């Protein structure tokens, strides 16, 4: 990361958006969206994560190597979640031989 110094204004805007998103996710939780409650909550959480990572953690100024490592991490996390949930959601779908 060569010296990229963001302005206080940029940080303030990001901070205010983060606070607004927190208020939004709390307010929308009381609205009945059925199964989409989880989806909306997670979409807002991912947006907040991206704001924190890109601006506060300077990922948008980071080296290509750091970005590659981060993408790798997301991939491993994806494998962890996907394979485990595939297992749990399909248990009992097929009979167990001999039982």
């Amino acid at each position, binding site marked *: *990361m*060569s*010296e990229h*110094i*963001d302005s*206080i204004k940029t*940080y*303030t805007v990001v*901070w205010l958006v*983060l*606070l607004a998103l*927190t*208020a939004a*996710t*709390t307010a929308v*939780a*009381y*609205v*009945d*969206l059925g199964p989409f*409650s*989880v989806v909306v*909550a*997670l979409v*807002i*959480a991912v947006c*907040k*994560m991206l704001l*924190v*990572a890109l*601006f*506060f*953690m300077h990922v948008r100024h*980071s*080296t290509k*190597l*750091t970005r590659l*490592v*981060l993408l*790798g*991490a997301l991939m*491993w*996390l994806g494998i*962890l*979640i996907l394979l*485990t*949930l595939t297992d*749990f*959601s399909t248990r009992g779908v097929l009979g167990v031989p001999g039982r």
Partner: protein
Amino acid sequence: MAEAHVETLALREQFDTAEQQKDASTLGMWLFLITEVMFFGGMFLAYTVYRHLYPMVFAVASSSLDAVVGAANTAVLLCSSFTMVLAVRASQLGQRKALIVFLILTLILGFAFLGVKAYEWNLKFEEHHVPGATFHFEGMAPDLQRHAQLFFSLYFAMTGLHALHMVIGVGILSFLIFQASKGRFSAEYMTPVDVAGLYWHFVDIIWIFLFPLLYLIDRHLPK
């Protein structure tokens, strides 16, 4: 390499340039944070699996948490990330006084978060919502009590480990304030502040996911 090379904090002997040294430190911190992603990822996954197994019990138990207190604590943590990033900025500009002020503000906000957390945990003890022999969730059938205990076990494990990371963060901040007051950091060398910032924001991100998943997603269901 120049023969008359003098080793400094910003440029150790094994690096070619100060920029290379800084990139190496940043990458090292990110690699550590990625192991933390996998560590917390496992717990989020356990929570997801059990929430799918016992959706109704988890919905009722989750709704017993105070969402307003949780949201307020999220705001406190976001403010602490804001002051932390301003501390990093001050150190990039070599502003020692501003650096110390922002680090102290971050420290105070970190303590505020932990204080609110302690208040919430204390309520759980009073309500007998702490897993164990005295656990009792009012208005729930006896055979479902164990599933409610499971929710609170996961709640305490996840918020507890997050709080442990906050306590470590508070320790790191105290150390940085001490070092900064001795004038150890400059615009040329502020890597410890920078990587501590990465850690602090990461702990913030974990809470960004913990808050909706523990407090919010079943709020809309009828009681």
